[in-house]
C-alpha cells in the first residue's frame, strides 16, 4: 500500500528538517571516559574515537566516544554527553548507551571499503578490520558504531570480545552470578536493619506450600490439596517441589502413576472457578501400556473434586495451536517488517507484511482458544485439562490467559506477577532455552512469553480500565528478560534454579538457610531496576480495581462510576431525536465478538447457535464488569499491532507530542488531582481511625503519589511536556539505525514504475 508517492521533488526537497548549524568537528578526547561499572563488572576491552550513529538519515548528530565491552554489557561513553534526554527512564543498572550482552541477538562487523560483512560468533577470527559494528538486539534495537577514526586493531579486538562474551559457555558465566554474590555481601548491613520477610517482596514465588495454600483458599478450591511428593525433585525434574492435586489422590497413587507421564509430570492444578470447576494442565502420557488406566484415574479424581462431578473437558493444545517453531518464525518475520527491512520497502506493503508474518493470527488463535476454555469453565461449569506434550510451552500461555480473563486478581500488578511466577516460572517453562541466553541451540528459541505479553496487551487495549498496570510495564518486563541479573528468566525449571542457586550460594559463601529471593532476587523486585518515581509509570490511572483507584492511607473510597451512559449510535443520535424519540432499540445494541459472528446471520432458525456461541453472545450483550469475567473481542479488526513494543525504536513511526501517551498524561494528572483533593478532604474531616492526617495541605508528599505525571499547580500550563512522544518512555534516537535503500538503482526503478502503474485511471480524470 501507499505506493503512490509524489513525484520528485518530494516534500523533503522543499522543506528540509530544521538544520542545525553546528557542525561537529572531530575533537580528540581530552577528558577520561570512565564506564559506570556494577559490582563485579570488569572491562574486557575498549576502543576510543568511536562514532555512534544516531540517525539513519545523516551523521550530523552522531556521538563520538569510547566503546567498551565488559563482562556484562556493551557500553558507549560519549565524549560530550548531550544533556540527558528526559524522555528516557533512568535505568539503575544500565546507562542510556548500554546493551547487556544477553540482549545481543547478532553481532555483525562490516568493512565498507572491502564490501565485507561477517556475523560474529564465539571464539571466531576476523580477517578484515571492521569499519562498522552493528548490534542487533533482542529488544529490537539496532545500534551501529563506526570505526572510521578508531584504531583498527583495537576496534577489531572489541568486536571479537563482544561476540565472544555474548556467547557464554556456561550458565554460571552469566553476569548475574557474579553480580548478585557481590551485591549480597555488600548490602548485608542495610538488610539486617530493616529486615522484612523475602526482602519485602509481595509477589508470591510459589516455592513453598504456604503460597499454594493461600491460592487454594483464595479460589475456594476445597477439594484440592498441596502435595509435597516432589520435594527435593524426587519425582519430576521439571515440576515445582509443591504442587496442588485432587484430595482424592493419595501420595502413593501419585507416585505410582507419575511414571506414565512425560518427565513424570503428573497433572498440575492451576486455578479454581468459584463454581467449583478447576483448570488443570498435564503432559502427555509416555507409557502406552499404562496410558488408559492412568488417564482414567486422574480424570476420575478431577471429576470427584468438582462439586457437581461434571464431566472434564480436555483440550489438546498441540493439535489446535501453532507450535513453538511457527511462533518463532512469525516473530522473526514481524520483527523483520518492523525494524529490519528498510523503511522505504516496508512502507509499501506494511499491512500485508504484517499479515505475512502471521504474528497477529497467532495472537488471535491463542486468545480465541483461551476464550473457548473460559466458556467451558464458566459457561459449562466443567473442569478443564490442558494437555500438551511436555506441558511447558503452549500450556503456559493458555492457562495464564484463561486465568487473566476469569480472575480479576491477576489483573492487579501483584496478581499478574504471581500468575507469571505460577504458570511460567514454577511450571517449568524453559526460559533459558526459549530465550536462548547461551546462544547454543537456535532451534529451541521461541518467544512464547513475548506472545503471552502481546495477548495481554490485546485484552488491555480493549479494556483499558481493567488492568492495574500499563503497557509500559509489559514492555519493561519483556526487556528484563534480556538482563541476566534476575532469577526469573534464567532457568529451565525450578530444579535447575534450585541447583544453580545452591552451588552459587556455596561458592559465594552465602550462609545456609538464606532465602534465594534475597540473595538472587527475581525481576519482581523492581527497585533493582527503577526508582520509586519511575515505577509509577506502571500504574494505570484508569484502573478500577477493588477500591484501588483512590485508596490511600486509611479511608477507602472507590470511584462512583455514576452514569453508565449508553450512547446511541449516531444515525440514531440526532436523527432519532426528531423521530418522536422512537429509537431503533439502542438499549439492546449487542456487542459482537467474532466468536458470535462466525455464524452467518440470516433467517435460519436460531437453533443452529451452539451453546458456546450463545454464551459469548450473552456475555457481549451485557455491559462488561471490569472486576469480573473479561472476554476479548476477536474479529481480525480488533487485533492490533502492539506499537509500543514493536515500533518504539522506529523513528518513522514516532509521533512527537502525540500517541496514547498524551491521553495517559492527561488522565494521570487528573487522578493525581483527585487524590490530592481527597487527601485534603480527609484533613478537613479530621483524622479517621488508624490514620494520621497529613500535615501539608498540598496532599501526599510527592514520593507517595501514585501517578507518574503529577497535577500541576494552577499556574502551570497543562501542556504535555515536549519530551512526550508516542515512543515514551523509550526513544528512537540512536536506537534504530537500519539499512536504507536510498539511491539503489533498483529501488529507484521500482518507484518510478509504480507511479506509472498508479495512473491507470488517468483517462477518467480528463473530462
Amino acid at each position, binding site marked *: 500500500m501507499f505506493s503512490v508517492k509524489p513525484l520528485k521533488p518530494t516534500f523533503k526537497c522543499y522543506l528540509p528538517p530544521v538544520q542545525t548549524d553546528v557542525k561537529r568537528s572531530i575533537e580528540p578526547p581530552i577528558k577520561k571516559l570512565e564506564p559506570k561499572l556494577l559490582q563485579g563488572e570488569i572491562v574486557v576491552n575498549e576502543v576510543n574515537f568511536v562514532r555512534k550513529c544516531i540517525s539513519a538519515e545523516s551523521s550530523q548528530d552522531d556521538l563520538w566516544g569510547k566503546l567498551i565491552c565488559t563482562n556484562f554489557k556493551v557500553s558507549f561513553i560519549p565524549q560530550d554527553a548531550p544533556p540527558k534526554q528526559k524522555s528516557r527512564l533512568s535505568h539503575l543498572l544500565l546507562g542510556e548507551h548500554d546493551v547487556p550482552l544477553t540482549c545481543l541477538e547478532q553481532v555483525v562487523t562490516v568493512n565498507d571499503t572491502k564490501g565485507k560483512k561477517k556475523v560474529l560468533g564465539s571464539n571466531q577470527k576476523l580477517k578484515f578490520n571492521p569499519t562498522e559494528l552493528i548490534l542487533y538486539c533482542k529488544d529490537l534495537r539496532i545500534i551501529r558504531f563506526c570505526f572510521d577514526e578508531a584504531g583498527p586493531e583495537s576496534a577489531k579486538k572489541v568486536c571479537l570480545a563482544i561476540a565472544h562474551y555474548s556467547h557464554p559457555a556456561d550458565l554460571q558465566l552469566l553476569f548475574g552470578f557474579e553480580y548478585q554474590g557481590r551485591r549480597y555481601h555488600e548490602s548485608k548491613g542495610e538488610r539486617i536493619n530493616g529486615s522484612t520477610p523475602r526482602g519485602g517482596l509481595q509477589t508470591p514465588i510459589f516455592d513453598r506450600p504456604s503460597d499454594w495454600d493461600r491460592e487454594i483458599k483464595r479460589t475456594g478450591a476445597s477439594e484440592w490439596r498441596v502435595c509435597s511428593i516432589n520435594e527435593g525433585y524426587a519425582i519430576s525434574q521439571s515440576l515445582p517441589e509443591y504442587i496442588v492435586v485432587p484430595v482424592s489422590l493419595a501420595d502413593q497413587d501419585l507416585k505410582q502413576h507419575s511414571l506414565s507421564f512425560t518427565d513424570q509430570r503428573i497433572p498440575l492444578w492451576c486455578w479454581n472457578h468459584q463454581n467449583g470447576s478447576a483448570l488443570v494442565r498435564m503432559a502427555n502420557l509416555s507409557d502406552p501400556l499404562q496410558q488408559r488406566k492412568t488417564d482414567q484415574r486422574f480424570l476420575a479424581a478431577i471429576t470427584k473434586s468438582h462439586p457437581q462431578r461434571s464431566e472434564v473437558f480436555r483440550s489438546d493444545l498441540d493439535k489446535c495451536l501453532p507450535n513453538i517453531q511457527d511462533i518463532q518464525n512469525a516473530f522473526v518475520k514481524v520483527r523483520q517488517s518492523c525494524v529490519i527491512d528498510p523503511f522505504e520497502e516496508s512502507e509499501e506493503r506494511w499491512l500485508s507484511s504484517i499479515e505475512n508474518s502471521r504474528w497477529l493470527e497467532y495472537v488471535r488463535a491463542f486468545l480465541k482458544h483461551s476464550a473457548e476454555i473460559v466458556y467451558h469453565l464458566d459457561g459449562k461449569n466443567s473442569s478443564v485439562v490442558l494437555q500438551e506434550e511436555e506441558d511447558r510451552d503452549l500450556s503456559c500461555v493458555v492457562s495464564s490467559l484463561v486465568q487473566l480473563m476469569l480472575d480479576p486478581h491477576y489483573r492487579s500488578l501483584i496478581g499478574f506477577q504471581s500468575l507469571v511466577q505460577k504458570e511460567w516460572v514454577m511450571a517449568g517453562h524453559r526460559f533459558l532455552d526459549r530465550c536462548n541466553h547461551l546462544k547454543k541451540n537456535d532451534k529451541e528459541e521461541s518467544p512464547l512469553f513475548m506472545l503471552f505479553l502481546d495477548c495481554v496487551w490485546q485484552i488491555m487495549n480493549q479494556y483499558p480500565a481493567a488492568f492495574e498496570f500499563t503497557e509500559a510495564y509489559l514492555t519493561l518486563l519483556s526487556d528484563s528478560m534480556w538482563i541476566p541479573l534476575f532469577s526469573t528468566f534464567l532457568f529451565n525449571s525450578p530444579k535447575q534454579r534450585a541447583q544453580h542457586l545452591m552451588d552459587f550460594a556455596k561458592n559465594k559463601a552465602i550462609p545456609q538457610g538464606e532465602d534465594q529471593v534475597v540473595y538472587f532476587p527475581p525481576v519482581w523486585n523492581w527497585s533493582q531496576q527503577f526508582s520509586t518515581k519511575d515505577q509509577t509509570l506502571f500504574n494505570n490511572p484508569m484502573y478500577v480495581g477493588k477500591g484501588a483507584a483512590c485508596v490511600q492511607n486509611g479511608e477507602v473510597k472507590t470511584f462512583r462510576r455514576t452514569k453508565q451512559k*449508553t450512547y446511541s449510535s449516531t444515525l440514531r443520535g440526532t436523527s432519532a431525536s426528531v423521530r418522536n424519540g422512537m429509537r431503533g432499540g439502542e438499549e439492546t445494541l449487542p456487542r459482537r465478538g467474532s466468536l458470535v459472528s462466525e455464524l452467518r446471520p440470516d433467517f435460519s432458525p436460531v437453533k443452529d447457535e451452539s451453546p458456546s456461541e450463545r454464551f459469548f453472545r450473552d456475555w457481549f450483550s451485557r455491559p462488561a464488569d471490569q472486576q469480573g469475567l473479561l472476554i476479548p473481542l476477536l474479529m481480525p479488526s480488533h487485533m492490533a499491532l502492539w506499537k509500543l513494543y514493536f515500533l518504539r525504536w522506529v523513528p518513522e513511526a514516532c509521533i512527537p507530542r502525540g500517541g496514547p501517551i498524551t491521553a495517559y498524561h492527561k488522565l494521570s494528572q487528573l487522578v493525581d488531582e483527585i487524590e490530592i483533593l481527597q487527601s485534603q478532604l480527609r484533613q478537613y474531616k479530621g483524622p479517621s481511625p488508624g490514620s494520621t492526617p497529613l500535615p501539608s495541605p498540598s496532599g501526599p508528599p510527592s514520593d507517595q503519589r501514585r501517578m507518574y505525571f503529577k497535577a500541576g499547580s494552577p499556574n502551570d500550563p497543562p501542556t504535555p511536556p515536549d519530551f512526550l512522544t508516542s515512543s515514551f518512555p523509550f526513544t528512537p534516537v540512536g536506537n534504530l539505525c537500519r539499512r536504507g535503500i536510498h539511491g539503489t538503482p533498483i529501488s529507484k526503478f521500482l518507484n518510478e514504475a509504480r507511479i506509472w502503474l498508479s495512473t491507470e485511471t488517468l483517462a477518467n480524470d480528463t473530462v
Partner: protein
Amino acid sequence: MSWCVLNHLSSLTCVENVRLLDRSSGQRKASTGTLYLSATHTIFVENNPETRKETWVLHSMVNSVERPPTIPAGSQLILHCKDFRVYQILIPQERDCLDVHTSLVRLSRPGKYSELYCLSFNPNVNKEDREESWNFIDLMTDYKRMGVPNNLWVATAANSEYRVCDTYPSELFVPKSATPAIIVGSSRFRSRGRFPALSYFHQDTLAAVCRCSQPLSGFSGRCQEDEMMLQAVMKSNPGSDFIYVVDTRPKLNAMANRAAGKGYENEDHYTNIKLQFIGIENIHVMRSSQQKIIDVGEMRSPSMTDFLWGLENSGWLKHIKAILDAGVFIARAVADEGVSVLVHCSDGWDRTAQACSVASILLNPFYRTIKGLMVLIERDWVSFGHKFSHRYAHLDGDPKEVSPVIDQFLECVWQLSEQFPCAFEFNERFLVAIHTHVYSCHFGTFLGNCQKERRDMRLRERSHSVWPQLWKDRAEYTNPLYKAELSQTQGVLRPNTTPYCFKMWKGLYNHMEKSTPPRQSPADFLSAVREESQQLEEELTNHQEVPPGGTAHHHLGSRQGIQHTKTPPVMTPL
C-alpha cells in the same frame, strides 16, 4: 407532509409478518414485525408486545436495494445504507416483496429536491428560530477571527449575484492589489471561472491558503490577468518572495488535462511560483476504493489474512494518507516557511476542498473545536461550492458523479484525532454525525451543489440548518481529554503520515464496533473522573467554609451529569 407519495403506494402502506435483521449491528436473530413505508421512512415495528421495538430508515439514507433470490421462507430484500448499515428483510409473499422493492427504489432515488425529507420535515420551531438557525454559523465572523479584511486581503464585490463564478459564494476575499479587472480576467482563464480566492489566513506568519481551479492553459496558453492574480497573492504576503502552487492531482493526470486545453501553471510564465504535485487520485478511484473498504467492514467472519489483505488492497488508507500529506505540505509551507499556497485540482471543489480544510485543521486550533469544525465545513465545503447533492446522491442522477469526498476529509480528521487524542474538542461521534447528515437530507445545510442553487431554492425559508441541532447535542460529542489551553502550544499539529499511523476507521466502516459499549474508552472514563473531580472540589469548598473539624454540610450528589437534550418529538404520519 406530502401524502401524494403515500397515496400512489395505495395498497402498500404496510406488510405484516415481515422479518428484519439489522446485520450491521451484529444482530443474529431476525425479529418479526410489520413493515411500513411512509413518504420519508421505512419503518419496522416488532411484534413482540413487550418491546415493540421500532426501526426507522430514512429513504434518503438508502443507497441500494438488493433483491436476492427467493428462499422457501419468502422473498428477501437487502437495504444497503449510505452510513454503511445493512438491513435484511424477509417478506412472506413474493408479490408484496416486489411492490416494496419497486416503491423503495423509487423513494430512495427522488427525482427532485422537493421530495427530500428536509423540505417536508417540520420540527416544532417557529419561523424566527428557523431563520436564526441559519445564522448560527457566520462566515464573516470567521474571516474576522482570522484577521481579514486587513491591509493585505480585502472583500471583493466582484462575485455579487454570482456574476463572475456561479459556483462560488458571493462574498469573497482577494489580495488587496487584485483589481476587478484582474479577477474577471483570471476567472476567464480558470475552469468554471473559479479564480484564486482566500481560504485561510495565518496571522502568525501572514501567509495565506488560497484556492482556485485549474488554469485553461493547454500546452501554451497564457493569461496576463491570471499571472497578475498570482503575483497579487504573493504580494499579499510581505514575508515571502514566492508562492507555492499545489496541484493536488497526480502529475500525469494534470499533464493529460493539457490536451483538453486545461492543465497546470507553467513555471516559466508565472514569476515566483513553485509548483508541487501531490497525487490525490480522482473521484472515480476513490469511489471504487471505498466500496472495497466497505466490503472489508461487512465481511462476516474474515480471517486475519482476509482482513489485512482486504484493507491493503482497498488502497483506502493510502488515499487518506495522500490527502493528509497534501494538508501537511500546505501547513508546513504556511507555518514553517511563511509562504502562501495556492491550491487547486481540476475544478477546485473536491481535492482542493480536502487539502485546504485539512491544512486549516493542522494550522489553527480553532478548527479542532466543535464550533470550529462546523465553520470550516461551512466555509471550505458548503460556501465554496462542493457539489454535495451530486457527490452524495441526494437525487437520482449520474452515478459517476458520486464519490466519498467529504468522507475522506472526515476520516483525515479522525486519523488525526487518533494521533493526538487531546487536541480535538469533539469525539468520533461528532464526525459520524456530520457524515450521516451529509447524506441524510434531513436538514437543508448540505442540499444543492453551490450557494447560488441553495439561494434559488430558498432553502433558508423552507428547511433547517443542521448546525444548531448538533450544537445542542454537543455534550454527547465532547472529548473530555481536550483542554482549551493545550491548543495554544499545540498550535500547529504535526502528524505522522507513515503507514504505521493509519488504521481502519471501525466506527464508520465496521458497525459492530459501534455497538461496543463506549465506556470502554479512556475518554468516557474521563468524563466520569471529571465529574468526580468536580464533586470533590465542591465538597472541599464546603469544608473550607467551616473550620476544620466542624460540621460541614455535604452536597454530594447534588450535581447532575451531562444532560441529554432532545428535541420535542415530531410525529411522522404512517
